[in-house]
């Protein structure tokens, strides 16, 4: 159709396929993208001179969207509306088709087909990611709900056992006060009973700690302070063991959100464990370092001892409740450490260092330090 008015070069710059229709809905001009696409689909002359309205009418019985487009095109041609827009799929691709009333000139309307496949795929990917994230969050919430319910049950039992336990220990105290001197070998019997009562008390206390729910409103705190508090709580053990305990940390390192009392309990437990496995006169070091990974900045708090380290076969179950190699231990110490670390959004891991010595690392999400704004 050589009589077609020349299309301004401006429209060729658009990646969308654009056609200009006259007052009857006939194609009078197309841009480069339209022509390329038409040729790829075997249409000679890019459809110039063809009635776009008739094409839509012919396709209407098999393509419902064509019927909608034909109706909209008639409306725009008649001046009843200025624009129309509809999404549609072609093969595996996604498009948006627009009809725009042209303000002036021989063309009455513009028909624009935009390939939105990559946006649609990006949206699908985002939806998939969102769905997977939602499912993961739901799984975590479910797990936390289960852990919380288990914690409440455990704590409930521990509370209930404390009353009869106190009745037993009080009766032993009263019995010893009343008859201890009169009955031969009483001390030996009482000692055996007391040892077991003490063990059960420790178990109840650990069960309560294990079952304790996380603090509802965590506060910013210094991990270094929590470590100091943990070491202070182990002071008698430190004195008795003749093991040296020290903290290594960089200046200013160590802010997290959490519960200082519970974190102090974590370090008390880890330092006590390290001391128990240390040789006399050995060193226990608590090292606090900031680590930046792809998923954020973390505080690594590692407790190192000079003991024999962990047996390889134990590493997979060190943090399981009731697992212990220590005689008389409740097996809940490291399980509590893991629980508290998880409650703080962190994790705990254990290794034997090359050359010997145990290493337990508590990794906690570091609280971002306020940045100083530079004044130019």
């Amino acid at each position, binding site marked *: 159709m050589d009589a077609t008015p020349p299309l301004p070069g401006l429209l060729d710059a658009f990646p969308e396929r654009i056609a200009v229709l006259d007052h009857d809905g006939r194609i009078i001009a197309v841009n480069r993208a339209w022509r390329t696409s038409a040729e790829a689909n075997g249409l000679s002359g890019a459809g110039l001179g063809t009635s776009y309205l008739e094409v839509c009418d012919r396709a209407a019985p098999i393509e419902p969207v064509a019927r909608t487009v034909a109706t909209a095109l008639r409306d725009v041609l008649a001046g009843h509306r200025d624009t129309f827009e509809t999404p549609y799929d072609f093969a595996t691709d996604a498009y948006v088709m627009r009809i725009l009333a042209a303000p002036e000139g021989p063309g009455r309307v513009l028909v624009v087909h935009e390939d939105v496949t990559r946006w649609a795929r990006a949206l699908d990917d985002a939806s998939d990611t969102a769905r997977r994230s939602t499912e993961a969050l739901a799984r975590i919430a479910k797990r936390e709900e289960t852990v919380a319910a288990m914690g409440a049950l455990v704590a409930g039992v521990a*509370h*209930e056992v*404390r*009353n*009869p*336990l*106190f*009745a*037993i*220990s*009080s*009766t032993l*105290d*009263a019995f010893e*006060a*009343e008859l201890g001197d009169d009955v031969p070998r009483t001390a030996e019997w009482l000692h055996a009973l007391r040892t077991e*009562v003490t063990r059960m*008390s420790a178990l109840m*206390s650990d069960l309560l700690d294990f079952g304790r729910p996380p603090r509802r409103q965590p506060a910013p705190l210094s991990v270094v302070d929590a470590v100091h508090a943990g070491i202070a709580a182990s002071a008698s053990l430190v004195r008795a063991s003749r093991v040296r305990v020290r903290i290594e940390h960089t200046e200013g390192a160590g802010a997290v959100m959490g519960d200082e*009392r519970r974190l102090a309990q974590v370090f008390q437990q880890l330092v006590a464990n390290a001391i128990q496995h240390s040789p006399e006169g050995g060193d226990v070091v608590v090292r606090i370092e900031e680590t930046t990974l792809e998923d954020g900045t973390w505080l690594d708090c590692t407790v190192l001892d000079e003991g024999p380290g962990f047996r390889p076969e134990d590493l997979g179950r060190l943090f399981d409740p009731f697992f212990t190699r220590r005689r008389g231990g409740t097996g809940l110490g490291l399980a509590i450490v893991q629980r508290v670390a998880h409650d703080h959004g962190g994790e705990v891991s254990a290794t034997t260092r090359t050359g010997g010595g145990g290493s337990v690392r508590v990794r906690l999400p570091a609280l971002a330090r306020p940045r100083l704004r530079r004044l130019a």
Partner: protein
Amino acid sequence: MPRLLVVDDVEAILFAMRAYFRRGGFVVDTTGDRVSAKRMVVESAYDVAITDLRLGGADDVDGLELAHFIRHTSPATKVVVLTAYGSPELETRAARLGVERFLAKPQPLAELAALVHTLAATVRA
């Protein structure tokens, strides 16, 4: 000798504490319910009252209500709460009510006796 009131709804605990503290020379009264405890506080001047937190009433922390009553009707009496159901929140609440100590069960009676002696000495000072 210190005058001591022990309130707990477990009879075995009352039995053991009565025997232990009497043996130690204390003047001890015991009761398992809050109403009797209140009457006893009004009728006798105790140096120290050791009360359980849960006394079997509708309220889970009726021991705190008793502590409040004792602080108002017998201000000189020092109150110790001894419980199997403690929490930092309850401990704070107890401290606000003037409770001297908030202890977790079980406690060795020798340590409780030492505490009662110390508290009674401040009452009599």
